[in-house]
C-alpha cells in the first residue's frame, strides 16, 4: 500500500511539470504581453513611463528573451522561493493575492462535495433499490434537469428570485461589514451563513450526476451472485444491502471523487463570477482578460495541481477500499 502511494506520488512529478509547461504556453498565447499593453495604455493617457522600472521587470521575467528562458525563470522562482511572480495589474506579488482566495475556493468546493454526497448517496441507493418506482422516476427526472441546467443559469435564476420576491441581493460570501474585516469567529459564522447558497447552486449538477452514477453502479451489483449468497445466509435485507452491494458499488463511486473536486473548483469559477464570490474564479477571469499573465498562470497551475492531488486522493481511497487494487 505504501509502495503504491509512493509510486503514485512519483508519477505526479512529470504530470505537474507537464502541466506547468502547458500553463505557461497558455499564458503566453495571447499576442503581446502585459508590459506592452501597459505602455500602450499609459502612452494613451499621456502618463510618463518609468523606463528603468520597466527594464527591471523585463529583466526579472526575461521578457523579450526566448520563451523557454522565461519558462525556466518562472518555474525556478516557484520552486526556489515560492515566488509565483508579480501581478502587473494589482502591482502585488501573486502569492499575496491567491492564497486567501484559494482557501475560500477550497472551503466552498469541499462543503459542496459534502453536500453532494449527503444528498446523492441515499437518493442513489433509494433509486436503485426501488427501480421504476414513482420516487425513482421523480429523482431521475430531477437529476436530468439538474444535469442540463448550467450552474450559472441556476445562480442567475436564484438571484432573480431573491431580488424580485425577497428584495435582497444574493452574492458574496460575507455580509458587507465582514468583507474587509480580519478573520474572527464572527466572520467564520458569517461565512457559514452565506456559504449554503453557492453550495446548493454548485452542488446541483454534481448531485444529479452522482445520483445517476450511484444508481447505475448499484443496479449492476444488486443481482450479482454474491448478493444471493448473502441472502441465502439469512442476512436481513437492509444490512445485506449496506454491507454488500452498496459497499461494492462504492468503489466506482469513489473513483469519481478525484474528478468531482477539481470539477467543482473549476465549475465554481463561473458561478463565482455571477455571485461575485471572493474565490479564484472572478480574479482568474479578470487576470485573463487583462493579460495579467503571472496571476492567471498561477491560478491555472494551482487548480491543475489541485486536480492532480484530487485524483491521487481518490486513487488512494479506491486502493484502500478495493483489495483487488491494493494487492496487485
Amino acid at each position, binding site marked *: 500500500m505504501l509502495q503504491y502511494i509512493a509510486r503514485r506520488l512519483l508519477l505526479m512529478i512529470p*504530470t505537474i511539470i*507537464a*502541466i506547468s509547461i*502547458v*500553463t505557461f504556453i*497558455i*499564458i503566453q*498565447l*495571447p*499576442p503581446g504581453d502585459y508590459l506592452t499593453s501597459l505602455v500602450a495604455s499609459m502612452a494613451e493617457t499621456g502618463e510618463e513611463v518609468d523606463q528603468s522600472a520597466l527594464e527591471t521587470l523585463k529583466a526579472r521575467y526575461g521578457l523579450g528573451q526566448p520563451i523557454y528562458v522565461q519558462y525556466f525563470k518562472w518555474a525556478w522562482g516557484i520552486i526556489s522561493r515560492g515566488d509565483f511572480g508579480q501581478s502587473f495589474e494589482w502591482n502585488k506579488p501573486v502569492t499575496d493575492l491567491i492564497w486567501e482566495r484559494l482557501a475560500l475556493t477550497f472551503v466552498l468546493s469541499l462543503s459542496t462535495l459534502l453536500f453532494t454526497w449527503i444528498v446523492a448517496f441515499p437518493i442513489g441507493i433509494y433509486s436503485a433499490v426501488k427501480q421504476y418506482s414513482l420516487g425513482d422516476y421523480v429523482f431521475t427526472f430531477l437529476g*436530468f*434537469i439538474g*444535469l*442540463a*441546467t*448550467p450552474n*450559472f*443559469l441556476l445562480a*442567475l*435564476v436564484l*438571484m*432573480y428570485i431573491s*431580488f*424580485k420576491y425577497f428584495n435582497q*441581493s444574493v*452574492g458574496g460570501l460575507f455580509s458587507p461589514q465582514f468583507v474587509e474585516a480580519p478573520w474572527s469567529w464572527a466572520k467564520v459564522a458569517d461565512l457559514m451563513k452565506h456559504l449554503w447558497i453557492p453550495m446548493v447552486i454548485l452542488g446541483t449538477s454534481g448531485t444529479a450526476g452522482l445520483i445517476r452514477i450511484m444508481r447505475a453502479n448499484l443496479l449492476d451489483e444488486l443481482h450479482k451472485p454474491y448478493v444471493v449468497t448473502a441472502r441465502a445466509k439469512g442476512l436481513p435485507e437492509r444490512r445485506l444491502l449496506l454491507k454488500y452491494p452498496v459497499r461494492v458499488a462504492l468503489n466506482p463511486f469513489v473513483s469519481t471523487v478525484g474528478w468531482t473536486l*477539481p*470539477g467543482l*473548483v*473549476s*465549475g465554481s*469559477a*463561473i458561478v463565482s*463570477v*455571477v455571485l461575485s464570490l471572493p474565490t479564484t474564479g472572478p480574479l*482568474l*477571469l479578470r487576470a*485573463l*482578460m487583462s*493579460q495579467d499573465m503571472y496571476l*492567471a498562470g498561477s*491560478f*491555472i497551475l494551482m*487548480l*491543475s495541481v*489541485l*486536480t*492532480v492531488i484530487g*485524483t491521487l486522493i481518490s486513487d488512494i481511497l479506491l486502493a484502500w477500499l478495493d483489495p483487488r487494487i491494493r494487492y496487485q
Partner: protein
Amino acid sequence: MTEARPLTPGIAVEEPAQETEINLYIASQWQLMWWRFRRHKLALIGGTVTLIIYLIALFVEFLAPTDPNAYSVRYTYAPPQRLHFIDRTDKGIRIHPYVYGYKVKVDKVALRRTFVIDKTKKYPVRFFVKGTPYKLWGLIEMKTHLIGPVDPEAPMYLLGADRMGRDMLSRMIYGTRVSMSIGLVGVALSLILGILLGGISGYYGGSIDTLIQRIIEFLRSIPTIPLWLGLGAALPPNWPPLRVYFGITVILSLIGWTGLARVVRGRFLSLREEDFVLAARLDGSSELRIILRHMVPSFLSHIIASITLSIPSMILSETALSFLGLGLRPPVVSWGVLLQEAQNVRSVATAPWLLIPGIAVVVAVLALNFLGDGLRDAADPYA
C-alpha cells in the same frame, strides 16, 4: 451451458414460425435497435425535440420574424407581448392574429421608463408574411417569414426586447443555429481525433497505446474550465466572428476527444478479443476488411450514442464561455452570447425575459441527453 435462448426456431419445430418471429430473425441490428429504442418513451420525446431544434436551426432566417441585429431605441427592454387571435371590434368578432402596441409610462418616483400594453393600438400579424429580405442559407433570396407584423415597422416582441430593443425571439432562433452547430462541429472534430487516436491505440496496442493513454490521462488531469478560460482569452479579440467560432470549437474538442477516444479504444480492445474477429482473420480477411466489415458495425451504434451524449456538454461549455465573454462575441448570436446580457442582477430584474435563452439551453441539453440515453440502451440489441 448456454442452450436456453428466447428465440428458437429449429429443425425440429416443423410448424412455420409466426410472422412476427420471422421479422425478428431477419431484422438487422438497426431494426432491432429501433425496436428497442421505441420502447423508451423519454428517448422518443428527446429525439423528436432534438429533431425540431435542428430543424429550427436549419430554417432560422425563415422562422425569425426579423433581423436579429435590427435595433430600435424606442423599444429598449420592451416586455413580451401576447399574440391575440380573437379580435372583438365594434363590427363583431374577427379571428386573426394581432398584437397590441406599447405605451411608455414614466415612473416619476423611480425615474424609470416602463412599458404598458396599449390596447388602442392593434398591429395585425400574419403567417407567411413578407418582411425583411434575407438569403436562406446565404443562397436563396427570400422575403417570406413564418410570422410577422403586416406592417414591417410595427413593433412585435413576442419574447420581449433587449437593451438595444432587438427582438429576443429572432435572436433566440438565430442563436439556435450557432449553439446547436457548435456542438455538432465540436463533436465532429473530437470524433475525428478520438476515432483516429483511440483506434490506433486500441488496434495496435503496445507502446503506442501506452503513449496515447498517457496523453489522454494528462489532458484529463487539467481542469477544464480554467483551461478553456485560458485558451478562450488567448483568442485575439480582432479575429473575425467565423474564426472565433472555429477557435472555440477547437478548444472544446481538445478536451472532448479524450472521452470518445476512450470509448473507441475500449470497444476496439474488447472486440479484438472476440472469437468472431479471430474467425474473420482465419477466413483470410484482410486487416482493413476485418476492421470495416466485422468490427466497425459492432461499435458504430455505441459511438453514435456517445456522440449524442457529448453534444450537450459542448453546448453547455460554449454557453458558459460566451456567457463570460471569452467565447463567441457579438455580433455573433448564440445562446451564451444572449445570456451575457443577463449577467447582472439589475438587468435580469428589469427584464427577466433575458433569461429565456437559458430555457432553450436546458431544453436542448435535456432532449439530447434523453436521446443519447435511449440510444445507449438500444446500442447493443444483442445483450
